[in-house]
């Protein structure tokens, strides 16, 4: 077994230090060491997007990265989006309002992907939404509620921006 390597990762504004095997994926590190179990693994080969997190502000698939590659970075998971326990992030709120989730398993990855997508494209057309979120798979909703939620969240976030 390879020697363990020290890593320090800031996860949702809290610094997590750990000794990890080089082969430990970032997803497993986040789930098992940082206890962010909202990071979901549904394919572990980089297609479904369920494990999507923000790494230094950019949406990445945490199943395709090793924890050692995240050393020194800032990670935001779905647990880190809501401003406080009484308030949801506009994207989370929109998913609830629009029935953008059923079983909820793909939802954390979708919410992170949508948040990143709207950061890059605050005023998307429906066609841009559909292609912008096509990197995440959902098996329950037929994407109807997810597209509607993205639309609603875009409007809400635009309103937040002065």
């Amino acid at each position: 077994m390879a020697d363990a390597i020290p890593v320090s990762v800031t996860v949702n504004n809290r610094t997590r230090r750990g000794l990890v095997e080089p082969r430990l994926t970032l997803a497993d590190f986040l789930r098992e060491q940082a206890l962010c179990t909202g990071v979901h693994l549904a394919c572990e080969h980089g297609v479904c997007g369920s494990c999507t997190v923000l790494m230094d502000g950019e949406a990445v698939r945490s199943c395709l990265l090793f924890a050692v590659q995240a050393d020194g970075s800032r990670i935001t998971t779905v647990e880190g989006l809501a401003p406080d326990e009484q308030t949801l992030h506009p994207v989370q709120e929109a998913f609830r309002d629009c029935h953008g989730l059923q079983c909820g398993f793909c939802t954390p990855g979708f919410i992170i992907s949508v948040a990143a997508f709207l950061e890059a494209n605050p005023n998307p057309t429906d066609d841009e939404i559909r292609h912008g979120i096509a990197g995440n798979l959902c098996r329950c909703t037929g994407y109807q509620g997810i597209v509607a939620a993205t639309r609603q969240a875009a409007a809400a976030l635009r309103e937040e921006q002065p």
Partner: protein
Amino acid sequence: MSSTAATAVRYVGQSVKRLEDPRLVTGHGRYVDDIMLAGMLHVAFGRSDLARAAITRLDTSAAEALEGVHAVYTAANLNHHNDSLRSSLHPPETPAPPANMLADGDVRFVGDPYVMVVAESRYIAEDALDLVDVEFEPLDPVVDYEVAADSDTLVHPELGSNLAHDLKVPNPAQREVFAEAAHVITETWHQHRQTNVPMETRGMVASWQPHAGVMEVWASTQSPHELQHIGARVLGTGEHKVVVHFGDVGGGFGQKIFLGREDMAVLVAAKLLAVPLKWIEDRRENLLASNHARTEQMTVSMALDADGHFLAADVDQLEDDGAFPLGGPASPGAMATMLYPGPYRMGPVSWRARTVYTNTCGRGAYRGPWQMESVAREQMIDRVAREMGIDPLELRRRNVLRPDDLPYLVSTGLTYESTISPDKTLEQAAEMIGYDEFRAEQSKERERGRYLGLGIALYIEPTSMGMGALGTESAMLRVEVDGHVNLFMGTGSHGQSLETTMAQLVADELGVRPEDVTLHQGHGSGYGFGTGGSRSAVIAGGAARAAASGVRDKVVAIAAHLMEASADDLEVADGVVSVKGTPTASMTLAQVAATAYKDSDALPPGTEAGLEHTARYKAPPAVHSNACHICTCELDPGTGQVTLLRYVVSEDCGVLINPMVVDGQIAGGVAQGIGGVLYEHCVYDESGNPLASTFLDYLLPTAAEMPDLECGHVVVPSDTPGGHKGTGEGGAIGAPPAVFNAVADALAPFGVYPNRQPLDPDTVLGLIASAGN
């Protein structure tokens, strides 16, 4: 039921926001992989890479010696716990493949588990699998289900045949009609192998408590009681010793109703080791070895008179059961053939249903397991319409069941109740899509070289089937001391929103708000078969209503006594009992509850202390829902690409509990149907190697492929409490033939007609190339 007037309907029918969502959108759901117990070890299975082979050598010593490995199990040290592994729906007298947890002596499909490693991490467990010294002697497999029945090679030599079922019900009247009919048209329709693909794979955490003899289980299941039931049998203990914790479940679509061989192996190993074990199936395992479905064909002959009236039908179904069907070799073929007449006056029907074993992944339930009836029938109707030169909508109008026909006794023995409305959903969908306008546009565009198509699918779905183990559900409802309502049910909600919809039913019946009701599933609930088969709204809902009604009677009786009012004058709403017309004269449910528990001397004489009621609802044999799907598409003859343009659904699921949830169920089913016809395919090569083992090969539809869905509702209440009908599976039943028919229609100018799926670009181009041959 209730001695006083029913509480007003306030929440049923509203798109109440889901009570599940705050935890799920913030990452605080609790799925099985989120359970982490002290000292927990991890399981990985070694699986066959060959479709059929003898195991000639199996030495696990090197794997056992790896640091971090705690145990390596094979058939030799695990399978003696094989006692009956049969599901509740699988009668003990029917022949079945050997119920081995691990392959014993030979492997019978790619993915067949033959070794199980328990180690300190999944990483180490998989390292150890590489050290298992195994040798196979390859044998010729049976891969093609069309020839399996006649093959000398047997998938299960113990059974003496590859034919699992052969049920024949000839009808002499059908033959007589065929002999005289103006038209008899025959076609064989093929579906192709698909799989459920819940986003959360299967998985289990099992923790044995020695001496107590208790097995605690956390599982991704649709049926916590089936798990308890089979788990107790596998472990040789009482059901009260198997404690099933039910958390969030990331989809199932039928895959998580029954226990798999791996689930049972994990339970047994957890007991042998007395250490908590976790097994989380990976996606490759899920795609190769959980369950497949829809590998089937139906040969249909239909007799018609000169005006296109259906006169009789002959239906012959053949389905692939794979090697080890999940949940047992029960086949939906009999249902598929019996349901073939669908929402039409079909006349006498003869039918036959066969199921065969092959060296492939076992068949399992997949949303609408017998939807081949609608696939074959609706595709056949379009085919017949083309052949007879009748518009497909008009042909359906001539034959659809109308109110005057109801109740209707189908030739195959089913009875449709008077509360179905196929004619209404047909007309509503036709209006929504703008049928005549589309036909005009279509013919105009064809002249310009644009190939548009429209497909219709009309169906009736038996939901909430009240038979055997499926027949009932229970609800235990308790108003706690502070007035909050705890509801314990045998369901297994895995996306269906039962925490919200059951709360809506209770809210109206009892007179509280939905957020005052908490649904508890799994341990502590009364027996029920769980969630699947479009059964929860009617059967579980019936139980929830009855339990709430029982408690409401008591609430009103206690409040009447305390308020010195007549029970008939009281109403209960939003947790407050008040005198009708005098809202100031009131008391809260919490005050009633406090009296019931803590001041029982103040209760009406003879009233039992406490505030709870348990009820069990028995469903009728079936509650039929119906729907019509119509979609339009454009076909690119250069690339073979099909783009869906519009998709409308008109459905009748009776009284909608939560319209948002109903539309969501329909949309999910439609997406699976679209995926099934156009993209998804579990391909095997002729040696039995599965070629779709990742999401790069097994293509799920994404948001970019899904059209906007437009839903219309026809509401004819059922005769069951509340007037609901099941709707969970319907989308996946109607969508495949609607999409297929749309593509077939777009291909009409080429003079070709498809009879098999998938309709991927290669297939479509092949059909176009064959035009004129």
